[in-house]
């Protein structure tokens, strides 16, 4: 702007000298450049929908005309806040569901953390048998839609409150299970914990694998007992991963819908998420968005508390340039009992639900479990108008096979982009730790986690229906499915990215920098290989959730972009139980196969040295 001489002996801002200096400075702070770019991109794809939700919460909706005949659609209103927080309906709409959700969130998180970290410890740090198989199988429950567990629970324990055919337990013993075992709080907590322990398991086993056993041995040398070593050495080093696991599990539970809807409804156990979905279902966006905002505020405060706890500590670095050893402790006489415990656990959480799905897909009349009722029609049938409206079996069904291709494509692309974005966000946040930019970035990368999926999808229709600058209109394309899936899953990958980066000491990168190695090479030669185990775990989570996702993308898919979950939704709507079970089973098996392959490949590529299994 001004080329007059600088008054205080400093070169003016736009002088060549200063610009060169600024460029030099920024070149040495790649985290700032990356941070700004990420922040810009995420602000657009995350903040715009958020602002839209805020705006809609304050806007008079056409649904509200029933409450205020003379209201003007689109005008500013406090009606929704009044309803949710103030009017008599608040108790039913907000207070009770909130209490239920919090109760549920705390209990599930507690159990999931306990189960997940115990299993992680068994798999990584002990000589329990069959580690390879177990390690892979322990994440299977997460690969099934969570309602599969709930359905399995019902077929075991349902009592005569919901009538019809007897539950297996009643059938075998004649005992009627009390309502509180069959429905409501207890089974919801149990089935959700058996599903979501996978977060803890993955994160903790990733982190445990990178904790140098020498640190613990040093403790032993100093005369610390076993438990004290865990408490003062191992536990603190696991804090970032544990913190991430707590945050991910707790917030996810607040937003989870399928299981509470299935198991809570018979005894009228309503949660926050069921109320949001009920409101969205009525197209009552006002109430839904106010409730969603409460969820968002809850989540943000939870993250804030978490970052206060984690953030005050100086260092969680476990990866340095120095020696690294991993030692397994000998379980001794507990080796077999521990193994059997894991086997029983897997039978309950993996084998039984899968068998149930398989059996369901092989029944001619759904719900009749006798052998004479078995058929392979729904897998290999050519299409017979007498059965299932003439829908051909899975392997002859063009619709299913096409959707399968799309699902896999979506899963892979989302995982890839998520991995890259998560790594960059993690890098910018950790290297810039303490700065405002890092805090904003961390917060914004987590925000999509708490959006009601269906609301995000609805808002994306409007956002991407026209071209934005050089970006053409994405609505109706496959790209928008990938984009929204990446955004929705970013919280996983950014958390794992951050957790992984926290463990890599800056000195490793500085060594390379001293030798004049550029940022890209540092990234590819040092950062990426070292964070690979965490990153692969995060990408796998994305892949799995992307394959299972429905409500997020249902508004955005078109027949050409149909995915497997959409197909399952269709079959469930039409009560085609065998088809829906068969396709669900197929989906689960594909997810399992692909993730096993990824694990094997990453192990043979050298990532395994660091990875948990």
């Amino acid at each position, binding site marked *: 702007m001004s080329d007059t001489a600088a008054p205080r002996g400093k070169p003016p801002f736009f002088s060549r000298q200063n610009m060169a200096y600024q460029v030099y400075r920024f070149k040495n702070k790649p985290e700032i450049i990356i941070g700004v770019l990420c922040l810009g991109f995420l602000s657009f794809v995350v903040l715009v929908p958020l602002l839209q939700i805020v705006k809609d919460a304050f806007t008079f909706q056409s649904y509200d005309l029933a409450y205020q005949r003379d209201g003007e659609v689109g005008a500013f209103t406090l009606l929704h806040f009044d309803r949710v927080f103030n009017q008599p*309906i608040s108790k*039913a709409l907000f207070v009770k569901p909130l209490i239920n959700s919090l109760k549920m969130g705390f209990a599930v998180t507690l159990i999931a953390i306990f189960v997940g970290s115990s299993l992680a410890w068994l798999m990584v740090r002990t000589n329990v048998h069959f580690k390879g198989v177990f390690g892979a199988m322990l994440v299977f429950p997460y690969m099934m839609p969570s309602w599969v567990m709930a359905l399995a629970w019902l077929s075991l324990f349902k009592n005569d409150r919901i009538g019809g055919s007897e539950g297996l337990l009643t059938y075998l013993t004649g005992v009627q299970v009390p309502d509180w075992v069959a429905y409501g709080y207890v089974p919801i907590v149990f089935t959700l914990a058996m599903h979501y322990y996978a977060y803890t398991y993955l994160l903790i086993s990733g982190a445990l694998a990178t904790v140098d056993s020498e640190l613990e041995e040093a403790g032993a040398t100093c005369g610390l007992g076993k438990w004290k070593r865990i408490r003062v050495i191992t536990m603190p080093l696991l804090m970032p991963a544990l913190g991430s696991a707590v945050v991910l599990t707790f917030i996810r539970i607040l937003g989870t819908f399928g299981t509470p809807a299935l198991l809570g409804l018979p005894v009228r156990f309503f949660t926050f998420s069921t109320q949001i979905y009920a409101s969205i279902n009525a*197209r009552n966006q006002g109430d839904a968005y106010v409730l969603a905002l409460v969820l968002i505020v809850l989540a943000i405060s939870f993250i804030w508390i978490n970052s206060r706890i984690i953030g005050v500590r100086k260092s969680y670095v476990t990866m340095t340039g120095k020696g690294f050893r991993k030692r397994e402790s000998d379980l001794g006489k507990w080796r077999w009992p521990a193994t059997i415990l894991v086997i029983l656990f897997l039978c309950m959480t993996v084998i039984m639900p899968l068998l149930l799905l398989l059996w369901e897909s092989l029944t001619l009349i*759904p719900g009749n479990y006798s052998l004479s009722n078995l058929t392979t029609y729904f897998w290999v049938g050519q299409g017979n108008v*007498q059965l299932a409206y003439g829908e051909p079996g899975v392997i002859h069904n063009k619709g299913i096979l096409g959707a399968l291709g799309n699902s896999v494509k979506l899963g892979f692309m989302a995982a890839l982009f998520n991995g890259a974005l998560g790594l960059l966000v993690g890098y910018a946040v950790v290297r810039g730790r303490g700065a405002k930019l890092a805090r904003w970035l961390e917060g914004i990368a987590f925000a999509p986690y708490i959006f009601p999926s269906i609301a995000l999808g609805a808002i994306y*229709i409007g956002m991407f229906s026209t071209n934005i600058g050089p970006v053409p209109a994405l609505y109706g394309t496959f790209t928008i499915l990938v984009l929204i899936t990446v955004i929705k899953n970013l919280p996983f990958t950014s958390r794992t990215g951050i957790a992984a980066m926290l463990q890599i000491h800056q000195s490793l990168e500085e060594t390379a920098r001293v030798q004049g190695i550029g940022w890209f090479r540092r990234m590819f030669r040092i950062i990426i290989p070292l964070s690979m185990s965490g990153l692969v775990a995060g990408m796998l989570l994305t892949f799995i959730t992307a394959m299972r996702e429905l409500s997020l993308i249902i*508004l955005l898919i*078109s027949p050409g972009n149909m995915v497997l979950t959409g197909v399952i939704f269709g079959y469930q709507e039409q009560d085609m139980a065998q088809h829906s079970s068969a396709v669900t089973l197929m989906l689960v098996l594909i997810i399992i196969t692909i993730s096993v392959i990824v694990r094997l490949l990453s192990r043979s590529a050298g990532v395994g040295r660091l990875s948990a299994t």
Partner: protein
Amino acid sequence: MRMTRSTFLKAVFGSVAAGVFSVAASTAMAQEVSPELEAWLQENALGTNAMVEENWDDIVARATQEGEVVVYSSSGRIAKLADHFQALYPGITLTLFDLGSVKTIEKTVREQDAGIFNVDVITTGNSGQVIYELLNNGRIFNYVPAHFADRIPQENQDPLLIRVNEAIVFFYNTDANPDGAPISNVWELTQEQYRGRVGIKDPMASGSSLMGLATLVQNPEEMAAAYERLTGEALVLGDGVPDAGYEFVRRLLANDVVIFKSGSKLADAAGAAGQDDAMIAMTNMTYISRNDSKGNVNAIMADLDPVSRMVYPTFMSIAANAPHPNAAKVFIAYLLGSPEMNLETVLDKPYLEGESFDMLQGLAPYHDAGSVSPRSDVPLPAGGEIWDEMKGWDITADFMWEQGPQLRDFWLIYSSQ
């Protein structure tokens, strides 16, 4: 149907109300339509430009030129029609979005607000929102093929053409009640004997279930009278409960009604064979067909005081600025079934094959007990003949629009206690 004095009076009042309402609707519509949209309507003879006579061959020819018809549907069963439709009208591809009722409306509104006009035919239930949000705001337009106009009763084509009428009814288990229906009055469901023994499909999640309840709430005087006929006493309303309709809902909830997520699961729970204490189910009549497919032993209570069948319609319409308006017209005509069908036509299962399919056309996937064509010249589906014997109430779009949210709030408050 016999024409009694009361049904006659109701028909008179109904048509007066419908007339008043359609005037109100058309003025509302006129306010919303932009000049561009009006030109489009004129060009395609839609909205107020609808013709009394159409050159159907010409419409089919243009439709074939358009080459595609895009449908947003609340029901997935419509997908069974793709091959048959495309064989009957070669050159027109049927592209179907199975979205469920909420998403059908949501997607339409969001797209149109964003200036995207992808869809030709919209078929979904939920009368309040379809009429008030879509039709009255010029987002969809009514279209009745001219050659069908006199075969469809007025209430089934005005203000909006109905694709299919279905009903919420009460099922009982014939194993548990071999002597017939265990109750004769809906208020018995709120008595101690039925505590925890009535199931209902969640009205907070299911539009049809909410409409079933709303149908009862819409007629408070008749509900109150039915209570008196049962007990001999006048109904005492609970604190803050506005009328007998709401009081029924309150008492049903207070009597520990069991809420089901899925109507079919409810039908199976009530109807599983061999139960001696089976529950009574308030669910969609169409699930009576699960007696055949799942071995249930349900029966429909056909003679309840004050009503035994709560009808809810599913509409079909042409979207504003539809890219394939003529193909949309052809598809809507196809959904009404062949013009050659009449009350004497013999239709055999499976309906999705051969001559029956050719007669029923778009009706075929829905020709099930519990579903009724809007046409007056289509035979009732096998197993659903009981429809005409049952006393039925219809729900008005006005009531759903104005009272639906209140009823939901009411349900929410009393179900959480």
